[in-house]
């Protein structure tokens, strides 16, 4: 619908540009101030019609990154510097320069598939109300039109419109997760953020949910930012992936390249540690734990756990530099061997 009004040059522009974004949790309790650098100097662009996977361990700052991108931040989280710019159908939107404009764009242009489906759907109200609450005011339709639009949308996603009359507890976890996807896509947004939508699901259901997200994305031509720590999910769904470690983007590139030729030792580890069916050779686990972001290691934040670390890594932070197919932040990029 919107695509028709966009003229050719703007179509090729990326839908999201994030520049040197820094977002810190700044706390001041009993005179002791603490700063947690959850997003530290992230620059990335997301193109139209692509699935961009963000991978990283818990507490690596990946959830904070997408919250900051969506402009959904509350103190003590603050954006210290940098910018987040969306381009919806030719109209520019700077999230932190004009926060009010962002409000109008939410759900209509930018929506969110959340992890805990039970937290999205109100347990004491029918599912229909969730659609009314989230989407109705953004669509500008009459109640009858809205209703038929929602029902048509559910049918296209392979869901029975009768689920609208059920309460969340009557539905299975997989069905609820599919409903949150329907909810996030009913306005046909150009930009969808999916935060670990498959983590709590059984393997069979997980595949169905992934297939559904891919279907919707292809039909709408939207951009999806897909966040999960599970690299096999990225392998299945992402066009490009960005690896986040301790609040920094350490590697980015097309999924096939990142899996075939990881440049950063952390990426290589994430991939080689995955168990494979039919293979029982011993897989190495990465020692140590993700760093504490209020007191991160000096230099490259990965150096205490890195098998390739040299003295330079301990003092100098490697910049994110462009390579043939992507970007990588490592002094010894490309030297890692894939098991």
């Amino acid at each position: 619908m919107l695509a028709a009004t966009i003229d050719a040059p703007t179509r090729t522009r990326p839908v999201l540009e994030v520049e040197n974004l820094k977002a810190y949790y700044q706390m001041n309790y009993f005179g002791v101030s603490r700063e947690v650098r959850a997003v530290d100097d992230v620059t990335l662009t997301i193109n139209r019609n692509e699935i961009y996977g963000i991978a990283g361990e818990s507490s690596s700052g990946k959830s904070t990154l997408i919250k900051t991108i969506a402009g959904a931040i509350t103190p003590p989280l603050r954006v210290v510097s940098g910018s987040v710019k969306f381009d919806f159908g030719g109209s520019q939107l700077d999230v932190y320069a004009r926060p009010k404009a962002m409000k109008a764009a939410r759900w209509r242009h930018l929506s969110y598939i959340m992890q805990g489906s039970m937290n999205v759907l109100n347990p004491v109200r029918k599912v229909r109300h969730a659609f009314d609450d989230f989407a109705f005011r953004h669509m500008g339709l009459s109640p009858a039109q809205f209703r038929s639009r929602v029902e048509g949308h559910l049918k296209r996603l392979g869901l029975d419109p009768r689920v609208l009359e059920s309460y969340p507890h009557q539905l299975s976890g997989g069905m609820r997760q599919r409903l949150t996807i329907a909810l996030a896509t009913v306005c046909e947004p150009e930009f969808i953020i999916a935060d670990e939508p498959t983590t709590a699901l059984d393997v069979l259901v997980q595949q169905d949910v992934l297939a559904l997200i891919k279907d919707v994305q292809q039909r709408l031509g939207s951009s999806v930012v897909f966040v999960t720590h599970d690299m096999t999910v990225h392998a299945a769904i992402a066009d490009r992936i960005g690896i986040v470690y301790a609040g920094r983007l350490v590697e980015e590139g097309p999924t096939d390249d990142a899996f075939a030729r990881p440049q950063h030792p952390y990426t290589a580890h994430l991939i080689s540690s995955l168990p494979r069916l039919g293979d029982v050779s011993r897989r190495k686990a990465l020692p140590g734990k993700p760093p504490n972001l209020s007191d991160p290691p000096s230099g490259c934040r990965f150096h205490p756990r890195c098998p390739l670390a040299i003295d330079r890594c301990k003092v100098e932070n490697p910049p994110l530099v462009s390579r043939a197919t992507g970007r990588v932040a490592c002094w010894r990029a490309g030297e890692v061997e894939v098991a």
Partner: protein
Amino acid sequence: MSVLLELQSVTKTFSIGGFFDRSKLQAVKGATFALDDTRPEIFTIVGESGSGKTTIARMILGNETPTTGTIRFMGEDVSQLRSRRRRLAFMARVQPIFQNPFEAFNPLTTLDYYLYSTARRFLGVRGAAADEALDKALNHVGLSLAEVKGRYSHELSGGQLQRIAVARALIPGPKLIVADEPVSMVDASLRMSIVNLFRTLRDDLGVSIIYITHDLATAYYISDRVIIMHKGDVIEAGEARAVLDNPQQAYSLALKNAVLPPDPTAARLALERRRSAVSAV
């Protein structure tokens, strides 16, 4: 052969619903298997949510009594352990590990408290002797008492917490560890440290492990034997490699196909297959 654990046609029926719409739910419909005492192994129970795998675990631990059938641990019927002394002796030999390490430990209690109380209860030791027992157990999981003492659960990662849970289970010197989905709440990158640890426990300490999971990839990686459960029925059982390489039932094949391979081309293909299978229905 002496038998460590033996389940004989164990069933469990739950009664659900209110006064007027009471119905019965058969969570487990006849499970029979045995673990050998002389040959420690990793015995895996695979199934989706609602397949009855957790119910079996709870019955083995003595938290639920079977509706019919018997569970014997070293010749003793688990549901007949009446006296406190016999229950403690049983608990010392069969230890649990739970799914979510963030919930298993109280965030307001230091982690060593759990370890000390386990040592006091099962070994009857305090002070320096307890320190020694804790340090020994923690060394088995690649940690030390100095690293853990005085720490709270929020200070450690999920993988580390789960290792501490394993160390706690090791303190009484168990013969059997029942691990219910021990890695599903742990980051994919840290999972292998737990899974490798189970292998080490089996090989070095001779502990048998009942590993409950829905993830076939790690099941294939560590199991000696596996049973696959579906809606309370054991639909396949046998040597792990034999069963998982060549599944006989449609459901186990679907489970196997649902494992996404860690390779973009193959993973996309798997997803594509699932999409066409779903749209064909």
